[in-house]
């Protein structure tokens, strides 16, 4: 084999060309990694809200809370199931909520956007201990007070501490607190008293969903079977984490495909860059190639050497691009979740697998871009190469 140091040092000797080509690759990897981080951020914003040992019950045929409705007696039957955890106070560890979507004016005055409103019972914070009031206080039960998620605070007119907005024509609610929940989609919601929200959205005698804490995550199948096989209920059961993943799926897939398409078009440019660089390198070094062949190196080892050089070149760019993309972790973004048509705020989330796949993508660009130049080097006639 042609030594590795031969390839690496040739790249270092052509410092400027190498840097320029690597930068082009780095740019593409930056876009690629950012898109994947976007997908991961969205997945987290949506999926974070779910836990494995919680089941969500919806009307059969609904795939989102906002389009589901369950009569109160049925909801009572659900929470009384034997698979449901019982709290020390003897009540079932469950929560029935009403969910609606509200169009609000953006704070900057540029049009409107949807926000998800959740009517919650008094003991909601017992059911969701990860949700914390980080400013102000919790809403008083049975009042016109609401708390808002940290991610949408200040982004809509009236949606900030001490302000108020209309939840329905002529029905104002006052913001008394701000909640956070590890970046989950609850941070993009408005939470009010269940009766207030019920009245505002005309959902009397209904809840949109029931969530129950299972005695263990393994109880889901038994619970699901018991509920879904009861024809009087007409309900469907999902593991909460799965429910949120499914909600995010469409948007994540759309974003990822869009981003990957952009990255793909950019990558064509970067690969052509790598190809031109490697072609020039092959032409410049044809006498060296001829010499190596004369010494007895095979066509295959020449091919491998130049492919390797191209991959190293691209990986160098890939490392730069991946590092730069990590800086995107500081950027916040809001986007409409197409499943609920409400706005979700999220961040770019770097994961080890994104870093790995970005580097693999860089290596792939190097392989493809370096392929024709390497083949050309390998196919050279020894004597022609020596004479050059």
């Amino acid at each position: 084999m042609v030594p590795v140091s031969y390839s690496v040092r040739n790249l270092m000797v052509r410092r400027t060309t190498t840097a320029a080509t690597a930068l082009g690759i780095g740019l593409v990897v930056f876009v690629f990694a950012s898109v994947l981080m976007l997908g991961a951020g969205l997945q987290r914003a949506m999926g974070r809200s779910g836990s494995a040992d919680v089941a969500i019950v919806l009307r059969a045929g609904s795939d989102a809370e906002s389009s589901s409705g369950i009569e109160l007696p049925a909801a009572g039957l659900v929470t009384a199931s034997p698979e449901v955890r019982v709290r020390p106070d003897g009540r079932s560890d469950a929560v029935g909520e009403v969910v609606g979507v509200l169009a609000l004016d953006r704070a900057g005055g540029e049009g409107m956007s949807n926000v998800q409103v959740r009517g919650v019972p008094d003991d909601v914070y017992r059911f969701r201990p990860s949700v914390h009031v980080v400013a102000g206080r919790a809403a008083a039960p049975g009042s016109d007070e609401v708390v808002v998620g940290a991610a949408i605070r200040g982004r809509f007119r009236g949606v900030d501490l001490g302000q108020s907005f209309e939840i329905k024509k002529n029905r104002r609610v006052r913001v008394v607190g701000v909640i956070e929940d590890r970046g989950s989609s609850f941070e993009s919601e408005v939470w009010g008293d269940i009766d207030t929200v019920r009245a505002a959205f005309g959902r009397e005698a209904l809840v949109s969903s029931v969530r129950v804490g299972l005695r263990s995550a393994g109880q889901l199948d038994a619970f699901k079977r018991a509920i879904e096989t009861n024809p009087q209920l007409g309900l469907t059961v999902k593991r909460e984490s799965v429910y949120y993943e499914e909600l995010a799926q469409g948007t994540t897939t759309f974003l990822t495909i869009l981003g990957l398409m952009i990255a793909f078009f950019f990558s064509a440019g970067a690969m052509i860059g790598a190809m031109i660089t490697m072609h020039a390198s092959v032409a410049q070094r044809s006498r060296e190639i001829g010499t190596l062949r004369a010494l007895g190196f095979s066509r295959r080892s020449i091919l491998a050497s130049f492919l390797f050089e191209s991959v190293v070149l691209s990986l160098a760019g890939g490392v730069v691009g991946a590092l730069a993309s990590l800086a995107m972790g500081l950027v916040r973004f809001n986007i409409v979740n197409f499943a609920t048509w409400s706005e979700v705020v999220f961040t770019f989330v770097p994961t080890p697998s994104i870093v790995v796949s970005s580097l693999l993508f860089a290596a792939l660009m190097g392989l493809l871009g370096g392929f024709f130049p390497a083949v050309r080097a390998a196919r050279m006639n020894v004597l022609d190469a020596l004479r050059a």
Partner: protein
Amino acid sequence: MSSPEESAAAPMVELTNVTKTFHRGAETLTVLDGLSLSIAEGSFEALMGPSGSGKSTLLNLVAGLDRATSGGVRVAGQDLTAMTDGDLAAFRARYIGFIFQSYNLMPVLTALENVELPLLLTKLPSADRKRRAATALRVVGLEDRADHYPRQLSGGQEQRVAIARALVNDPKIIVADEPTGDLDRKSADQILALLEKLNKDFKKTVVMVTHDPEAASHARVTHHLNKGAFQ
């Protein structure tokens, strides 16, 4: 790869009725015209002749870099006419040491690494390769330049590194195409002395193309080529 023909009695190089033609469009150019040549093992032979007479073409056939259009080519007991490209590469790696007019060292590799290159085609472990490369550099008197890059060496020193590279694999034959063509008299004499040393002390068969009668005088036999035939 040892075969009965590889005995001392058989010549190291045996060309029989070799022709080499090139095609330029419709025109056919006969560069070697029914040429025969026999070189004994351990000999030092020079090829001379005017420019374009076919010296390099002939040397390339002996070195397994090119194929004869017709005729027999046997080198180091091997029939080169029957070989594939891959066989020829393996043949060159094993039997041939190359010395080029313009040295052809890899600019990004040090003197020692350049000398080590042919050993990368063997199964020798790294430490043995380094040791052999260092020994070869000592033979050409450049052990103190092992870590120098070609651009840090004079032309004569570069050619000595190239000789170490040609020697390191312990080939049967050294082929040199105008090895002193780019050098001044003093450096040229050093190179010629080294080639004689390879021939006498290391028992290498040496085939050298040259324009320089002084260089040819170091050879045991000088062949004069003119228009593709010996005079």
